[in-house]
């Protein structure tokens, strides 16, 4: 039995949804060009940028996996947030990569690649970015819906229809107003989301108590619950992989980099990064505390109220189950509005930024002549609608197993490793060329994809020391995959970054030097082969 009241909490949620829709749709009249639709006319200032970046980077899915980290790893589970904060602050402070990127005036990272590596690399980079990004966001809807089902006690049969209505609402204002609607609604969503996160965290600290949470983590995980280097599930491989991954995400994650590119100038883009950096600690620590509180308070009897399917992955659903019991009527409305705000801002931003890559880079070869702004806008709107349909279909049938954060990091790694290395080489290595770029993209995409496939298909039955089959909570035999057992996702991720770097360097050095009479339009000459751009 949860504390969600349709009269009180439902009204709060309804008012929030109505205000968001009105704000999102109202700004559509300012969209007259593709640049307005994709980058808000590059008119975004610092504080709006901070609100938008923070709202985008915190969805229900974020809340779920960071709380899962707290539940399964204790305070040490917030380590990726600290690493992300350090990476974002240093990149913003130094302008590493983002300064040349914003100075270049491009709309997307692949567009910059074309100047260094040629049109082919731009197109392939666009494909890889979209593939990684869409696979990554494919699980957002279901996880968001499941949060609502568990926290509010909704009937699970209505999960799909609730998700669909929410996505349609987001798609409507995103299709109409593009990045402008995304920025304005992100601002509202940041305020609602932050108010909910802060109030609920203070409530939890008051109800559960700091010492109870610390004692629980100490009892369950020992020193590993506080120190990632001595945690059995983490260690140096986890820390190093997350450092590489978060640095790569800061440099190339489409939703983050879109804020740099939408900023009114380079200095504003850098300020958005330095001033949002600490939010990434909050992003992991606050839901992590919710997860630790769930670990402290939930009894096996309460956990058994989860559906059989959810009990297989109980660590993921423990936090919403706990909140459903702990948050009183009235505050529950604020919490649900906050979570919807988090989810909607993430979905809208993901749709517009990945849609931007599809239009600007993947469709670039099809725009032999310059398209009118009207035609460009029509195509962009159609692409956003298409991404929405993909989200519905993929989000409904993909069966998520295991650790959500590991799924997200692996699908993200499909492009994060290659794009980050290509970007660094593009900005700072004169000898980098298209051979190295192709090699880097192929290694960066194939290795994580192969891991995902092998992890799903190449499995064995887990046996205990006596040779007997280990069983899951529901009595089925416990299975593990050979790649997870022998290498594991973290070492595999580190090796992927390493191999992509080697491929980039080796490929670039292996390419024969151009003949002296080669015209300047060779694809690896900076500024050459720019082709048609939006």
């Amino acid at each position, binding site marked *: 039995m949860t504390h969600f009241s349709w009269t009180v909490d439902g009204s709060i949620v309804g008012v929030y949804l109505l205000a968001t829709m009105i704000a999102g749709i109202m*700004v559509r009249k*300012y969209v*007259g060009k593709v640049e*307005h639709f994709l980058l*808000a*006319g590059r*008119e*975004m*200032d*610092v*504080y*709006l940028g*901070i*609100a938008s970046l923070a709202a985008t980077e915190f969805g229900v899915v974020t809340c779920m996996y960071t709380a899962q980290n707290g539940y399964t790893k204790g*305070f040490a589970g*917030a380590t990726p947030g*600290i690493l992300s904060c350090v990476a974002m602050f240093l990149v913003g402070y130094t302008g590493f990569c983002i300064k040349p990127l914003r100075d270049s005036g491009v709309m997307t990272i692949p567009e910059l690649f074309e100047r260094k590596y040629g049109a082919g690399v731009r197109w392939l980079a666009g494909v890889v970015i979209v593939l990684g990004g869409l696979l990554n966001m494919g699980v957002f809807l279901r996880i968001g819906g499941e949060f609502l089902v568990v926290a509010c006690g909704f009937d699970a049969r209505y999960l799909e229809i609730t998700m669909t209505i929410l996505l349609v609402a987001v798609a409507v204002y995103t299709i109409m107003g593009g990045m*402008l609607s995304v*920025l*304005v609604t992100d*601002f509202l969503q*940041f*305020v609602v989301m*932050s*108010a909910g*996160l*802060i109030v609920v*965290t*203070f409530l939890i*600290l008051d109800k559960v*108590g*700091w*010492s109870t949470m*610390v004692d629980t983590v100490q009892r369950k995980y020992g020193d590993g619950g*506080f120190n990632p280097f001595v945690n059995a599930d983490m260690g140096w491989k986890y820390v190093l992989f997350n450092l590489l991954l978060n640095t790569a995400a800061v440099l190339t994650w489409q939703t983050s980099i879109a804020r740099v590119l939408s900023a009114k100038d380079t200095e504003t883009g850098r300020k958005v990064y330095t001033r949002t950096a*600490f*939010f990434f*600690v*909050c992003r992991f*620590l*606050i839901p992590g*505390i919710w997860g630790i509180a769930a670990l402290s308070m939930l009894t096996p009897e309460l956990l058994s109220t989860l559906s059989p399917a959810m009990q297989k992955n109980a660590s993921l659903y423990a936090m919403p189950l706990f909140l459903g019991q702990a948050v009183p009527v009235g505050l529950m409305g604020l919490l649900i509005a906050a979570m919807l705000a988090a989810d909607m801002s993430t979905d809208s931003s993901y749709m517009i930024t990945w849609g931007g890559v599809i239009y600007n880079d993947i469709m670039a070869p099809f725009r032999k002549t310059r398209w009118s702004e009207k035609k460009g806008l029509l195509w962009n709107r159609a692409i956003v609608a298409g991404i929405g349909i993909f989200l519905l279909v993929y989000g409904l049938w993909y069966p998520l197993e295991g650790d959500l954060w590991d799924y997200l990091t692996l699908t993200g790694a499909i492009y994060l490793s290659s794009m980050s290395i290509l970007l660094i080489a593009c900005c700072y290595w004169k000898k980098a060329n298209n051979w190295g770029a192709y090699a880097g993209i192929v290694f960066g995409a194939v290795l994580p994809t192969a891991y995902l496939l092998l992890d799903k298909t190449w499995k064995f039955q887990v046996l205990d020391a006596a040779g007997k089959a280990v069983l899951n909570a529901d009595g089925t035999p416990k299975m593990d995959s050979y790649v997870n057992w022998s290498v594991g996702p973290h070492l595999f991720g580190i090796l992927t970054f390493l191999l992509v770097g080697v491929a980039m360097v080796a490929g670039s050095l292996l390419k024969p030097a151009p003949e002296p009479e080669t015209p300047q339009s060779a694809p690896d000459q900076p500024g050459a082969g720019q082709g048609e751009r939006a």
Partner: protein
Amino acid sequence: MSFDSTHWFWWLLTAAALLWYSTITVYIAFKGALDIKHMLARLKASAETSEAPPK
């Protein structure tokens, strides 16, 4: 939530996160609204400039 000297790092980080996040939310609520107002004004002005007939 009295000071925890044993796990001081996580206690301080949690306190800093809550303090910073509470402050920045209020601050951004005001400054962000101004940013939106100015952004829309600039977009409106630029649309009017591009639509104006050549002199």
